[in-house]
């Protein structure tokens, strides 16, 4: 009995498990490539062609195009690889946090500060 056999959703949380990793394999492989500067430049020069090279699905391509991080997660993105995608967009982890939670950056920062009280 694995802890993963408990299928009760954890609110606001997507566990990156085998099912997600299968679904997001190409998407994550693309984002993994962004460790290399040349890959980042190639992506920036023609995003769509680069997504095709990594065999992203149409839904995944749309999520990338829309910078829809929640959709990327749902389609199998792993946050550690997606962070490299965010880097290309010049977004840091707090920017990403705000985007995913629908808060402004200041609201998101305040949420973090409040957690320390």
């Amino acid at each position, binding site marked *: 009995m694995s802890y993963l056999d408990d299928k009760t959703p954890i609110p606001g949380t997507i566990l990156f498990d085998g099912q997600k990793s299968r679904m997001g394999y190409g998407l994550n492989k693309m984002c993994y490539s962004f460790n290399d500067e040349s890959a980042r430049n190639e992506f920036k020069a023609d995003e769509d062609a680069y997504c095709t090279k990594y065999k992203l699905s149409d839904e995944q391509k749309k999520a990338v195009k829309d910078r829809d991080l929640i959709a990327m997660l749902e389609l199998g993105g792993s*946050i550690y690889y997606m962070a490299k995608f965010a880097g*290309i967009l010049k977004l840091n982890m707090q920017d990403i946090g705000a985007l995913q939670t629908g808060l402004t950056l200041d609201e998101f920062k305040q949420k973090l500060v409040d957690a320390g009280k």
Partner: protein
Amino acid sequence: MAKIIGAVGSSHIPAIGLAIAKKQQQEPYWKGFFDGHIPIWNWLKEKKPDIAVVFYNDHGLEFFLDKKPTFSIGAAEEYISYDEGWGLATIPPIKGDPELSWHICNTLVEDEFDITICQELGVDHGLTVPMQLMFPGDPNYGGIKVIPVIINCELHPMPSPKRCYKLGQSIARAIQSYDQDLDVVIFGTGGLSHQLDGQNAGYINKEFDLMCLDKLVNDPEYLFKFSVRDIIENAGAQGIEFNMWMGMRGALPGKVEQLHFNYTIPISNTAAGTMLLSHE
């Protein structure tokens, strides 16, 4: 014989590396966090350990999903810091001690840990930020050599906190049976409660962190009751990086004394803990 002289718990978040690069240590946001390391800096300068066993996790720099190990041990002459893709500066190579690495690997496999042995290993902020943090401004990191111990915190299934603690115990046995006169410090990095992804991004749980850190010092086996899922429910998706602290604590044999403790919310999106432990 080699001797474990103590352990340090610390954060490894990239924002710390960026703050160091921008020399922001005395700015209001950062002052409390960095000053919280002074007792550790002093201790490291006084004790001058020869070796640091560093428990950390790779965040998609050197490992990809094609081959994702549960536990990996570095056994290289040196560890190179590479571009991670989003602007963190690389740092000078970090020296390894392959002979001790192999001794640890031999012991771990004998103890039924099914490790991946890494004779080439690029390292990301999981290891580079603690090195910068513990040896500020020193490109030679106090002359210390490292043994990287990498725990999967990215892809489920992940090892339980209990398994990580047992990994630390086996590493301690290896060190204590190593026939060279070396002083060894254990670094646990990462955590504490935080979540980077999803609608729950920005989640932090101070109460749970403080309970975990208290138990970690005084009654670590209490924490065996938590599954990976339990940790994530309580500490957020990336709160599972607490597994590195479990590994670190497992490597501290005998009676433990907490010499220093600091806890800051927030550092970037995390609750950051800083801890110095010695043992008899």
